[in-house]
């Protein structure tokens, strides 16, 4: 084959050599067709032979071989036009032979200066391939793009569902999961964080919680440090679990209530620190009879010295006789009544269903008026109808009886032999007594209402034209400022808290005092009782106050004195 060798000299000029032969010999020896300098080149280093069109076989006799395609020590290889190999540090490239030649080799000699040319030794980590800049840049880009840019872009385009499921969203900025009650919109941060770089405003909360009420409508409350410029989010914190969203921490309450003397306008309040250690005695909302005896009025009282509270409910019901251990006489003989005979739990078992005369009382208390002609059964709860029946049927009957009795008395000789005629009043001829027709209708009606029937169990209002039963005030709760449910107490016997066996008067309110509750309920952080914080029994947002979404109604101020405890015995406000 005809071989053309192009070699670049040290001065940069190209030298061409032409030779012929069956193979091209390469090496350091002078007789080699392509002589290459350098001690790393063996005297007879390698040979190139034709191996087909454009392909050549390279074979190396030297132990060091050639460096070809990234491998060193190659002894045999097929090289083709366009490929390169390194021999003893020199670079050789096979190129397409010019016409007339079968092999074209381009030689670039290694830079001299040493007998051996070497790749630079990698003596430190930088040359070994490690870098500080590239990873730093990659990390910066990754953090900015994944941590900030993509979430911001997704916010701007409204968080499309498909993209949001595979790309990082602003959920990556969430400091913790939302509570389960908010989880159904928890993925939409703007639902609460309405304005970027602005804290959550109350409107975000009241858009759903529209009916949340104030703690107090007292106009002075807005100036107290605990309430001034407060947002919902100051006390209700999301992303930190249930306990932070609805905090049970008593410090929220005792911050003001522990030192009411420091709060202008509220200094009459009793201090409260802890249920076990410092909590005022219960104040019960009860009824008392108005001065004129016509209605019931509401007041708040503390228990008396004997620990009892009186509630003039308008219903005169003695518990002691009804639940006596020996039983009570019923229509079918002796009956033993228990609490649940009348007090039936409601569906939630939090309280009790209304007492109902028909269901609970009428079996024994029949409201009957017996006359010789008939037995009248008065309708319960209907003053006018009852009066009508009495006037229509009972009064004439009684008067008739009275007249008959008077007449028979007149006919029967009395002590001084006077005879009386029917219709005549009794008495002697000299001073004849008027004939008795019995008591008048008004008196009879009053008797029925006040003594015979209604008044046995009810208070009667006599101030009007006709006697009326004062509608009794049977409350569901006498502690309206507290939240109490019987449901968690259902395992406790009724008599543990309600001392009805010792109830001797009909106005006894047989509710427990704080000492009864303290038998089981302890304060905050106590381990030897039911841990009870303020919100265990009290609501912060009180149902009887105004909506938080409205400003308090300053036109109707509530006086602070209305919040103060009433006198324990009379129930009248101080």
């Amino acid at each position, binding site marked *: 084959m005809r071989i053309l060798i192009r070699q670049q000299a040290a001065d940069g000029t190209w030298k061409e050599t032409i030779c012929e032969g069956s193979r091209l010999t390469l090496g350091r020896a002078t007789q080699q067709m392509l002589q290459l300098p350098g001690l790393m080149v063996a005297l007879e280093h390698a040979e190139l032979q034709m191996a087909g069109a454009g392909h050549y076989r390279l074979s190396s006799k030297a132990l060091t071989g050639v460096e070809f395609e990234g491998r060193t*020590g190659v002894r045999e290889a097929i090289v083709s036009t366009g490929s390169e190999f390194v021999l003893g540090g020199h670079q050789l490239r096979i190129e397409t032979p010019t016409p007339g030649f079968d092999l074209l080799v381009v030689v670039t000699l290694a830079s001299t200066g040493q007998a051996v040319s070497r790749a630079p*030794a990698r003596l430190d980590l930088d040359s070994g391939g490690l870098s500080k800049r590239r990873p730093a840049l990659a990390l910066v880009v990754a953090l900015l793009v994944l941590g900030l840019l993509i979430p911001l872009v997704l916010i701007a385009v409204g968080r499309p569902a498909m993209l949001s499921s595979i790309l990082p969203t*602003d959920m990556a900025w969430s400091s913790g999961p939302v509570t389960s009650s908010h989880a159904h919109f928890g993925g939409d941060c703007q639902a609460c964080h309405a304005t970027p770089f602005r804290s959550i405003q109350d409107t975000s909360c009241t858009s759903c919680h529209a009916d949340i009420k104030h703690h107090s409508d007292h106009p002075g409350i807005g100036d107290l440090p605990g309430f001034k410029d407060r947002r919902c989010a100051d006390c209700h914190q999301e992303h930190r679990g249930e306990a932070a969203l609805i905090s049970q921490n008593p410090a929220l309450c005792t911050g003001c209530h522990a030192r009411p003397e420091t709060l202008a306008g509220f200094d009459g309040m009793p201090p409260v620190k802890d249920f076990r250690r410092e909590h005022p005695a219960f104040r019960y909302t009860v009824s008392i009879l108005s001065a004129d005896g016509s209605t019931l009025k509401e007041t708040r009282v503390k228990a008396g010295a004997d620990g009892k509270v009186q509630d003039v409910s308008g219903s005169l019901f003695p518990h002691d006789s009804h639940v006596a251990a020996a039983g009570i006489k019923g229509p079918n003989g002796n009956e033993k009544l228990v609490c649940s005979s009348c007090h039936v739990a409601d569906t939630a078992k939090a309280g009790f269903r209304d007492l109902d005369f028909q269901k609970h009382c009428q079996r024994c208390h029949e409201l009957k008026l017996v006359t010789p002609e008939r037995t009248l059964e008065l309708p319960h709860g209907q003053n006018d109808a009852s009066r009508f029946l009495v006037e229509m049927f009972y009064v004439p009957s009684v008067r008739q009886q009275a007249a008959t009795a008077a007449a028979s008395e007149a006919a029967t000789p009395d002590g001084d032999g006077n005879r009386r005629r029917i219709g005549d009043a009794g008495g002697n001829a000299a001073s004849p007594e008027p004939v008795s027709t019995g008591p008048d209708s008004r008196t009879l009606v009053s008797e029925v209402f006040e003594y015979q029937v209604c008044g046995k169990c009810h208070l009667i209002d006599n101030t009007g034209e006709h006697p009326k039963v004062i509608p009794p005030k049977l409350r569901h709760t006498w502690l309206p400022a507290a939240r109490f449910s019987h449901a968690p107490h259902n395992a406790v016997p009724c008599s543990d808290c309600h001392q009805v066996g010792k109830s001797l008067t009909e106005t006894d309110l047989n509710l427990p005092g704080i000492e009864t509750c303290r038998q089981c309920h302890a304060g905050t952080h106590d381990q030897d009782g039911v841990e009870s914080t303020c919100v265990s029994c009290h609501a912060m947002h009180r149902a009887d106050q105004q909506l938080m979404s409205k400003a308090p109604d300053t036109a109707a101020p509530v006086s602070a004195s209305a919040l103060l405890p009433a006198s324990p015995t009379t129930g009248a406000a101080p």
Partner: protein
Amino acid sequence: MATDNASSSTADEVAGHSSHLIYRNYFYAKVAGALVALALLIYLLYDPLHGHSGSTWLGYTLGTISFGLMVWLAWFGVRKRQFQTGRGSVRAWVSAHVYLGMALLVTATLHSGFHFSFNLHTVAYVLLCAVVVSGLYGILVYSILPRRITENRRDLPPRAMLAEIYRLDDTALRLADKVSPEIHAIVSRSVANVRIGGSAWQQITGRYEGRNDRGLRVLAEKRSDQLRREAGKGKALLSTQALDRLETVVVMADQLFESKQRNQADEIKRILDMLSQRKALVERLNHDVTLRARLNVWLYLHVPLTVGLLVAVLAHVIAVFYYF
């Protein structure tokens, strides 16, 4: 070892060297300790309504302190390159950097209130931990390895070792060229196959492709086989185990060559000497490379992670105030 320590500490005193860790009687350790103690004390005494978090006043304070510390700690990279304009000695900066860097881990953890979750904020915290831990590794190796490097070098710096290796290569090749093509081939292969340094992984593990002693072994094998045949004794003069123990090989080969080829004995002996010297030097140089790699590898984590951390904290602050 005690003697070593005593002598080396005397050497330190002579050289005026003292560890940055004990700089100024542990001054910066005390400063960092005081900062940590104060932060812990306030953290334990302050009982916020909804528990500790980054958004209490203490959380904001610790967050600001941590951020400031982070920036100042990162500035060390700038300070240590300010040879003319820098203020404060670099030793003081290093000492402060180490101790305040450890304190940063505490302040940042207290700032978080131990609230961790799969979010950007915890990513920043994890980056911080990685930075500090890599730095702790750095302190550890800096207290152990420099002495070993010095002992290994024996006053010959790496570039000088490399130059000497190259010089030995060249000389051995020239000599081998004069002896025979076979010897030259073996020596040139040995020169080509020597592994000095390598990739980052090889440097750190210290495992370089160990083919640089093969030429010596091949040479000895060839000669012993040849002489065994010629001696006709049919008994192996060199056992396989002996072949593995190169020092023995060198001695034996030396004896064999002298007996057989006196005219080339000198060259061959010199070649063998050079190859063994080179082998020892290559091992020393590679050991130096390995020790220096292990001394510096942590920086390839510490520095990029610090840059990432600064960006992550920036993103953390933006995200926190975006959804304020």
